[in-house]
């Protein structure tokens, strides 16, 4: 194992320049994030654990999750040191059983007493912030680097205000407040996290988020117009009728999918860059240089490979995506990474995480 210092080579990061923090300061050292997992090794871990999950009717899924996460964490290195995932599979299994019971209750209530279902939805809306906070806390406290745990301090009240309170603003404004909401959410999540005793800090980025979403929206709109024109052109071909219309629809759907992919990659790349480039952890800064085009190409080739192999390429796709994301992230630290203090550890149950998973709540983190 190498115990080398971070290299001090000054390199100008490329990528979306507007979102980059100031240049590397004198005395700051660079610590690139490395990802050393291989698709070939992860494939066997993935497929064996998936088969065991199926054979055990899902009970093994908690162990499968922990093993997969431990493999990824153990291969994510900063300054030669690996991350550690500590969650206890039994705790995750308990959470999943509770979540499953709730889901069964939900479906049955709809079957027997239809009136109960809307009530259940309201209860879920109230519970979502709690689920989010618990899920983040469970994940944080079970993640460690250099034997120092992460923590999430966000309480229910603030989560409710940010997720539901600001979420209602999005609804009332017919979606216009969506980027603001995402910025608030990102800030809430970042600022409530700490590494040991040191808090992460992220300023408000609403204006920057608006720029990202507007650009993606314009892209999507432009492609929609182009696709529509292409469809009309194809449909008005001399043959006319069903065949031409079908061709037109296929052209439109393909163009739309490509536009969606590009817009998706653009938002992913730029939001990730923005967030990391403005985040601080004590004296540590981050540089994230994801590139929209490369990310879109990565997603596109992933989709093609996964479909062509009936899903067998999933592990390879996950590994190469993760590797790209890690390679594009660098830490800048003035005083090295040795001076973080650990905090008292606390146990957090996994129920929140499991329930959120089962009801398929995408927190878009």
């Amino acid at each position: 194992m190498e115990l080398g210092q971070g290299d001090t080579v000054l390199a100008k990061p490329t990528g979306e320049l507007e979102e980059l923090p100031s240049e590397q300061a004198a005395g700051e050292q660079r610590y690139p994030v490395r990802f050393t997992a291989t698709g070939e090794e992860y494939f066997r871990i993935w497929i064996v654990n998936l088969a065991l999950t199926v054979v055990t009717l899902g009970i093994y899924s908690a162990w499968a999750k922990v093993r997969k996460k431990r493999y990824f964490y153990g291969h994510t290195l900063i300054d030669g040191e690996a991350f550690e995932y500590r969650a206890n599979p039994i705790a995750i299994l308990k959470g999943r059983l509770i979540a499953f019971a709730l889901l069964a209750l939900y479906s049955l209530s709809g079957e027997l007493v239809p009136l109960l279902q809307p009530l259940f939805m309201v209860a879920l809306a109230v519970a979502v912030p709690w689920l989010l906070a618990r899920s983040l806390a469970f994940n944080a406290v079970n993640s460690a680097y250099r034997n120092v745990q992460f923590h999430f301090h966000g309480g229910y009240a603030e989560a409710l205000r940010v997720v539901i309170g600001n979420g209602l603003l999005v609804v009332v404004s017919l979606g216009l407040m969506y980027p603001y909401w995402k910025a608030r959410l990102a800030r809430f999540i970042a600022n409530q996290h700490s590494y040991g005793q040191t808090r992460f800090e992220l300023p408000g980025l609403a204006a920057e988020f608006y720029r990202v979403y507007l650009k993606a929206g314009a892209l999507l709109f432009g492609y929609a117009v182009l696709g529509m024109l292409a469809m009309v052109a194809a449909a008005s071909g001399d043959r006319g009728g069903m065949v031409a219309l079908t061709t037109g629809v296929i052209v439109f759907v393909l163009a739309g999918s490509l536009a969606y992919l590009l817009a998706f990659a653009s938002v992913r790349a730029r939001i990730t860059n923005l967030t990391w480039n403005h985040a601080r952890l004590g004296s540590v800064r981050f540089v994230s240089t994801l590139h929209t085009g490369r990310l879109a190409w990565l997603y596109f080739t992933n989709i093609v490979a996964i479909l062509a192999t009936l899903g067998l390429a999933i592990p390879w796709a996950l590994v190469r995506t993760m590797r790209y994301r890690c390679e594009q992230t660098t830490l800048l630290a003035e005083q090295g990474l040795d001076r973080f203090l650990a905090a008292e550890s606390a146990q957090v149950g996994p129920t929140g995480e499991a329930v959120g998973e089962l009801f398929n709540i995408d927190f878009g983190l």
Partner: protein
Amino acid sequence: MTEFDATYYDGKTSARTAVRVRGCGHRLRIAGADGNFDAPLADVALDEVRADARVGSARRFLGLPGGAQLQTDDHDAVAALFPQAAPWQARILGLERRWSYALAAIAILAAFTWWCAVYGLPVAARLGAMAVPLTVESKLGEQALYALDKSFCEPSALGEGRRSEVQKQFERVTAGLKDGFLYRLELRSCPRIGPNALALPGGAVVMTDDLVRLATDDAQLAAVLAHEIGHVRQRHGLRLGLQGAGLAALIAALAGDAVSLTGLAMSLPTVLLQAGYSRGFEREADQYALERMSEIGVPARHFADIMALLSKQGPEAGLRGEALDYLSTHPAASERVEEAMKAR
């Protein structure tokens, strides 16, 4: 005696110390990087050390008493010192390391997915559809008809006399069917759909003017109507919806994290499999149509005749050719005519 390089963390700060570790007997001795074991930094009993379960080539973490930790990549040394660490998960590790087990896992997953798609989901959907009350199903049908009227169809342009003749055929086909469905015929003019008939959940049957005009004998319309009644009775609309939802859930469960990676593309296999399901439903409905026709005394050749007429029709004829059979939602027309002829 086993010796290996490791990094030591005290658990209070993120500071690291490069160390040399030696296992002798039941003790673990930790010395500085210089390897001077005469003045060790720590000396702990082996059974107080918690070795984590190994996953692939990922780094090993050894928990020491008091919250300190050793980290190392020397898998052989850890395996030699802690042969009993997480024995149950060590078996899994053995499975994960061999390609032969990975191939067996692929076979298990392929068999499971195939079984679910071909047997499990259709049976589950049939049971699920039975649990849905007729009132709910009718409501779904109403919504479908509303959507159809809004975007594709106008009121029928047929004369009143012709309409009542078709209605008579409909009553002939549905007479005496005491199965709870509220059968009714909806005639529509839908030039964009062409000659066609659709069964909606709950009992409404939509027939287009073009189809009525295409038929050379009213018994042919009875054959088509019997086919659509077959769809209604066997709740094909509802079952198709439930099977689609089940498929999506199955794929999401198997693909896991990859869903977010591929997004939309995951719906593609669902669409392809759905096409296969609806072909199965067409065969079921054909079968019912022939049975019902013999019950009410309509010769089976009328079914073959209308199929032949339909397959000759318009640009769809090309799309319904045998080469595209797999993608088409309807079995190839000639195949259906053959089956109908056999039944005669």
